[in-house]
């Protein structure tokens, strides 16, 4: 696409005109001060004025730092989710690993870490919202737009995160139940063999020692599986609760609310409306009936008091 960069021409012209302006300023000041030091004073003055101006506008408000923090959290979360994904696949891939529990523990810790980061990001975002709302005017609009866009990003990440967790859960379930079936098959086989051999008497006595051990094993496996499932389900639930609020901020794509010009008109409308409402409130406050009643009653009280005092004096006067 064709374009033309006028920056250099612009800068030259600006430099020329600023130099001309400074020279003109210097020329004007000459009668008031002696020669050489004059330039120096003027420069200083200009510089300090410049500093004042920049210092007033240089420090961005607190909520900008919060926005940066949210950005940082987002990138951290993305990175950690990648790590989690690889840990998931390694866990699911290894069926007979020795330190399966260790790996699972690490996975759990990482999952909790990511959930915490989501929560901190949400907190920062809410702080941004309140800070900008309080500031009012353009900053409020900027703040709400920032919230909307970052909330959308957070929501997408959380959906991805939940999907990853659910897939992991399903895989682990499948694996464990598959293992269970394997063990059951073995149990059945052993039973047959054992039954085939010294048989009938054993069966009458219920479970033998061996079979008891197997049952214990199975029960343990079931319990641990249950615990895992409960943990994961809990974390998914928490995540879901977090984004109920922020989901409201996200705009539907493709609707009229998604149009830039509509949003600009809406802002104008709201500001105009707001101003009229404020004015109406102000006038109605002044004309309030309650105010009239209060004034009237105060006057009445004063009047009655006067009558009382007068009467009292009269009585005293008689005596």
């Amino acid at each position, binding site marked *: *696409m064709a374009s*033309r960069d006028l920056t250099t021409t612009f800068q030259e012209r600006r430099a020329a005109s*600023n130099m001309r302006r400074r020279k003109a300023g210097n020329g004007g000041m000459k009668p008031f001060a002696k020669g050489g030091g004059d330039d120096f004073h003027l420069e200083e003055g200009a510089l300090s004025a410049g500093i004042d101006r920049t210092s007033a506008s240089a420090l961005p408000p607190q909520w900008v730092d919060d926005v940066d923090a949210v950005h940082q959290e987002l990138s951290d979360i993305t990175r950690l989710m990648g790590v989690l994904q690889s840990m998931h696949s390694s866990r699911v891939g290894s069926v007979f690993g020795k330190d399966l529990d260790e790996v699972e523990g690490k996975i759990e810790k990482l999952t909790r870490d990511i959930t915490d980061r989501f929560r901190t990001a949400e907190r920062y975002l809410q702080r941004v919202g309140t800070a900008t709302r309080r*500031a009012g005017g353009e900053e409020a609009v900027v703040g709400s737009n920032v919230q909307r866009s970052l909330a959308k990003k957070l929501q997408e990440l959380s959906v991805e995160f939940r999907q990853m967790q659910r897939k992991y859960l399903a895989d682990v379930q499948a694996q464990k139940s598959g293992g269970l079936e394997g063990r059951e098959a073995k149990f059945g086989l052993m039973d047959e063999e054992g039954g085939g051999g010294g048989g009938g008497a054993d069966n009458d006595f219920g479970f033998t020692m061996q079979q008891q051990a197997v049952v214990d094993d199975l029960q343990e496996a079931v319990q641990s599986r249950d615990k895992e499932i409960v943990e994961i389900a809990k974390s998914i639930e928490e995540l879901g609760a977090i984004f109920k609020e922020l989901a409201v901020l996200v705009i539907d794509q493709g609707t009229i609310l998604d149009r830039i*010009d509509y949003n600009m008109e809406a802002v104008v409308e709201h500001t105009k409306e707001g101003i009229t409402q404020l004015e109406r409130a102000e006038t109605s406050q002044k004309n309030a009936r309650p105010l009239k009643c209060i004034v009237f009653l105060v006057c009445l009280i004063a009047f009655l008091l006067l009558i009382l005092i007068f009467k009292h004096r009269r009585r005293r006067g008689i005596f």
Partner: protein
Amino acid sequence: MDAVDAIRTYVDRIVTGDGKCRGMKVLLLDASTTQTVSCVYSQTEILSREVYLVSRLDDSSQNPNLGEHINANGSVSNLNDLTMSMPSHLKAVCYLRPTDINAGLLVRELASPRFSEYHIFFSGVVSGGLLRLIAENDEQELVKQVQEFYGDFLPINEDLVTLNCRNTLAMSAATGTAWARDHAHLYERNRRGVEGMLLSLRKQPTQIRYQRSSALAQQLARDVSDSIASDQIFHFRKSGSGTLLLILDRLDDPVTPLLSQWTYQAMVHELLGLNNNRVILRGAPNIAKDLEEVVLSAQQDEFFRKNRHANFGELGEAIQKLLNDYQKHTASHDPSRLNSIEDMQRFMEKFPELRSQSHNVSKHVALMGELARLVDICSLMDVSQFEQELACADDHSTHMKELMEKLGSSSVKIPDKLRLGMLYALRYEDSGDVNLVKTAMARGGVSEDMIELVDTILRYGGSKARGPGLYGERSKDLMTKMTKSILTSVQGVSNVYAQHVPVLMDTVQSICKGKLRMESHPYLVGKPPGAGAGNDPVPEDIIVFMAGGVAYEEATKIEEFNRTNPFKVKVILGGSTIHNSTSFLEELKIL
């Protein structure tokens, strides 16, 4: 050559300050660049590019430097005092037209700056004086870059472009007369619009042709070719067999904007009004609150992109299919059949997608319903059939009889009666009885000032004013005409509502055969040797600009043409505005 793509590339570069502006940004626009940006970028997209505030520089309620607020107690205070903390740590990216007004606004802004940095992008060629004015007023050196990005128009479809510039019919009629000065700013806008089209599509025309019957077209062509010759920026590498810039005027074909339309985009514009891709349904019966104003944009709406040129019948079927797909989708995600937590979670994940799909379906269903209702009320089927006959066939006595019947009937709405009268007047200007028709119209309820429009349109686009070609007067001799009419009466027409072919299509077809006559469309630039012999070289790209406005029917036909000639020729159509019959009649009133 894709107009939407061109503008999107420009806006992509602008929102990142052409790569030089990082962090939170504010986008400052003016009235026309707002429309341009809103057509190609949605709010969510622009938010995702870290532009957190979009504001208009020329609107006093959004620009505190401009407005003065009258307090309740009557004192005047500058809005500057009211807003407590200005977001001065933000960087501003401005996208403005290079007009004097905008320069003044920029000067005011730089005098009391609201933001820490300014990156300025102009949507046209900047004059030296303008640049100097801004440079001299930038004391604090806040302007970090100034560039020209030539996105000076609104891309509606990939091959349709508009300038949203009204009242160009008056401008066309006044060219060359003493009143031309009143329309100087409109002319300027149109000229810059054409130049913007050329620059953003990166085409340097090897041939420039214009319509002889229009003084405006000639002047515009001459000015554009002068600009190209004088400024290096217009010079691009020649591609293939060249580019043709064709400048036309609406007065050559006053019939097309008057006809009722039956393709989706055209029909919505004709019956409801499609402005900047927005349709207002407020006021129609049975409209839900969130459908009062809807967006019909081919970039965001897949269904609309596929069906915008589909006719009414096909459209009905397509919407039926859309509805069935949607119902199937929701049935598999039925909230009442959720049995486990997993089902619920899967439902919640699919929910946003389902919600946007549901909104889309209900939007198209509502539009279709409203269009069908209006067709019914205005008995548009009958009226349109007669319109098409008036526009295409030549049968005075039958037409007169039917016209009288329609003008006297109460089921035909008054604006439609006016349109029928005008179509008759245009066709039978010399041979028919226009006065009789006018009295019939008055009896049918058409008001006095509307009847005057019949005379106006004859003055504007009658056979004396326009070029040849409207009613097949151009190249067909008597034999071809007779054979054609015999064939049509014997065979019938495939779709009686789509008979009409706009003059534009005839012109384009002639260009492709190399047979466009020089008497009607002379060359300004690039005349080939031996031209006029009927074998002119066929250009690869044709950029058509119609001063006075285009109609969606022409856009549909151009799109069809592009589709059927994918590797031979590509046409892009631009116009001052996009007319429907209402806007056309309004502009005629001012003539």
